C-alpha cells in the first residue's frame, strides 16, 4: 500500500495536467483556425485575390519594405474586407463570452443574453429610432445609441425586479422573460403604426448584419469585448463556485449576489455593444458555449476564452458563407447563424446525457 501511494498520486497529477493541457491545446487550435479562416474570408468576394496576397497586404502595413503589396489589394483588404472580418471575430467572441457567462451565473444551459430580454430591448430601441425618429442621441448614432441604451435599461430592470425577490437564477430568468415579452410587444406596436419602408428597415436591422462595419465600430467592439472578457475571466473561480449552488458558493467565500450582478452587467454590456452595431445575431451566445463545454468542460477559466474563440469562428464562418453563397446577394448573417445554429442545437439536445439538465 505505502509503496503504491506516491505512484498513484503522481499518476493523478499527471492525468490532471494532461486534462488541462488538452484545454490549452483546444484554445491554441481555435486561435490558429481563426487566423486561417480570416485569411480565407478576406480572399472571398467580387475581386479575387489569393490568401498569400491578403497576408502580404496585412503584413506590409506593419513591416513596410519587407512585404510587397499593390494599392489595389491594399484598398480591398484594408478598406473593404479586413474590418468586416475583425468585426465578425470580435462580435462573435463577445456574444459567445456573454452567453457562457450568463449560462454560468444563472446555472441554466438555456440562458443567453437573448433569453433575458436584452435582444428584444435592443430591437425596440432600434425600432423607436427608425420609426419614430426618437432617441437619446442624435445623428448617425441614433439607432446605435437607442439600441445600446435600451439594452442596458432592460438589464438594469431585470436586476431591479430580481433584487426585490432575491438575486437567484430563477428570479432573474423570470424577470428577463417578462421584460422580453414587454419589449417584443412594444416593437410590434411600433411596426403596426410604422410605414412599410420603415418596417422593412426594422426587420432588416433585427436580422443582424455585419454590413455596417467600419474600423471605428470594430475598435469599440474589440475594446469592450476584450476588457469585459478579461474581467469575467478574473471571476472564473467565483462563477465555477456558483455552479455548485448559492449556499456552497457562499461557504467557499464567494460574495454570491455581487458576483452574479456584476457578471450579468458585464455580459449585458458586451452584448449591448455588439448588437447595437450588428442588430440581433442569435444563437452564437447559446450554441458556442455548449460546443465549447463539450470539449473543455465546465471550468470557466478555460470555458470563457475558448467559448469566445469558438464564437468568433462560427460568426466568421457564417458571415463568409452569407457573403458568398448567393453572391452578389449578401444574406443577413443573423439568418445564417440560425441556419447553422439550430440543427446543431437540436443535435445537442438529442444527444445530451440524462444528467445534464
Amino acid at each position: 500500500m505505502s509503496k503504491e501511494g506516491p505512484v498513484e498520486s503522481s499518476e493523478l497529477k499527471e492525468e490532471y495536467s494532461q486534462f488541462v493541457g488538452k484545454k490549452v491545446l483546444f484554445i491554441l487550435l481555435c486561435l490558429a483556425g481563426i487566423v486561417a479562416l480570416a485569411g480565407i474570408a478576406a480572399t472571398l468576394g467580387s475581386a479575387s485575390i489569393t490568401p498569400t496576397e491578403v497576408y502580404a497586404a496585412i503584413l506590409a502595413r506593419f513591416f513596410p519594405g519587407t512585404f510587397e503589396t499593390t494599392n489595389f489589394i491594399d484598398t480591398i483588404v484594408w478598406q473593404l474586407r479586413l474590418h468586416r472580418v475583425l468585426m465578425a471575430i470580435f462580435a462573435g467572441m463577445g456574444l459567445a463570452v456573454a452567453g457562457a457567462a450568463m449560462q454560468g451565473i444563472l446555472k441554466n444551459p438555456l440562458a443567453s443574453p437573448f433569453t433575458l430580454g436584452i435582444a428584444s430591448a435592443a430591437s425596440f430601441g432600434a425600432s423607436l429610432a427608425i420609426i419614430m425618429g426618437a432617441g437619446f442621441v442624435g445623428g448617425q448614432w441614433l439607432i446605435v445609441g437607442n439600441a445600446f441604451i435600451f439594452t442596458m435599461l432592460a438589464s438594469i430592470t431585470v436586476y431591479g425586479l430580481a433584487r426585490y425577490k432575491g438575486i437567484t437564477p430563477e428570479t432573474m430568468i423570470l424577470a428577463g422573460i417578462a421584460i422580453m415579452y414587454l419589449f417584443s410587444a412594444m416593437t410590434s406596436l411600433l411596426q403596426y403604426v410604422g410605414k412599410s419602408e420603415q418596417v422593412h428597415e426594422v426587420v432588416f436591422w433585427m436580422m443582424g448584419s455585419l454590413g455596417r462595419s467600419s474600423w471605428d465600430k470594430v475598435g469599440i467592439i474589440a475594446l469592450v469585448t476584450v476588457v469585459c472578457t478579461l474581467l469575467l475571466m478574473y471571476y472564473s473561480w467565483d462563477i465555477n463556485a456558483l455552479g455548485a449552488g448559492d449556499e456552497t458558493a457562499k461557504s467557499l467565500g464567494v460574495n454570491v449576489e455581487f458576483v452574479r450582478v456584476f457578471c450579468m452587467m458585464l455580459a449585458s454590456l458586451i452584448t449591448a455593444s455588439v448588437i447595437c452595431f450588428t442588430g440581433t445575431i442569435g444563437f452564437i451566445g447559446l450554441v458556442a458555449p455548449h460546443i465549447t463545454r463539450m470539449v473543455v468542460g465546465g471550468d470557466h477559466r478555460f470555458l470563457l476564452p475558448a467559448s469566445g474563440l469558438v464564437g468568433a469562428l462560427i460568426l466568421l464562418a457564417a458571415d463568409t458563407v452569407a457573403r458568398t453563397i448567393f453572391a452578389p446577394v449578401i444574406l443577413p448573417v443573423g439568418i445564417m447563424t440560425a441556419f447553422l445554429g439550430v440543427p446543431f442545437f437540436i443535435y445537442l439536445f438529442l444527444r445530451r446525457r440524462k444528467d445534464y439538465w
Partner: protein
Amino acid sequence: MVKITIKDLSFSYGSRKILDDLNVVVGDSEVFSLVGPNGSGKTTMIKCIDRILKPKGTILLDGGKDLQSLSRQEVARYIGYVPQSTTSVLTTTVFDTILMGRKPHMGWRVTDEDIDRVVEMMKLLHVEEFALKDFSELSGGQKQRVLIARALCQEPEVLLLDEPTSNLDVKHQLEALDTVRSIVKKTDISAVMAIHDLNLAARYSDTLVMLKDGKVHAIGDPLALLTEENIRCIFGVEAAVMRDLDRPYVVPLRSLSGEAL
C-alpha cells in the same frame, strides 16, 4: 480551545421564528450532532454558523472572532460546509469539484500545493478512481465523499455537515460517519452535523444537542440524553431505548397524538 461559541442565536423567516435564543459551545476535536424533528432548526443552525443565513445574536469563531466581522473568505478558511445534496446542472469533473475547495486559499492560478492537497484528500476519501469523471455520474455515497473532500481542501477548523447520511444506504452511512469521526479524531478539526438517525448520532457523537422548536431541549453526552422521556418529548414518539449493546439504541414504537404529549 473552543472552536465555536454561540450566544443568544435567533433566526426568523418573516414572523416565523426558526431559532430561538440558542446558546452552545463547540469544543476542540469533537463530533457535535444536532438532532430533532423536521423544522426544529437543525439545518438553519448549520447555515447560520456558516453565515449562509444571517442570524441575530453572536457567533464567535477561533477563540473570540465575531463571525459578522469576518470576510466570507476568512470564514471559508475556518469552516468547511458539506451540503445535504447538490444538483449541478452544468458539467464539472470530480477533480475540479474538489479543487473548488481551494478557492479560499488560491488566486486565479492553481499552484502545485493546491493540486497536492486535492490529491491527498481524494485518496483520504477514496475517490481517486473517479478523478476525471463527471460529478453528476457518481452515486449518492460517492458524491457525499467528494463533497467532504472538497470541504477538507479548505483546511477548515470546523466541518459542517447537513444530514450527511440522508441519501445513503446503511453501509455508506456507516462509512461516511466513520470517515468523519476518524478525521476529527486524527486532527484538531471539529464536526458539527445535523442528523436524523438517533442511533447513528448516538454512536458517532461526542456531544448531542436535542433541538425542539428552535430551542435547545437538552445537550450533553449521547449516552445520557437518549432516554424514552426525551424522545417522547422531542419527537412525540413512544420509543424503547435498549441498552444491551455498548451504546444505546432507539426502537421507535408508535407516534403519539397531540394530547398524549
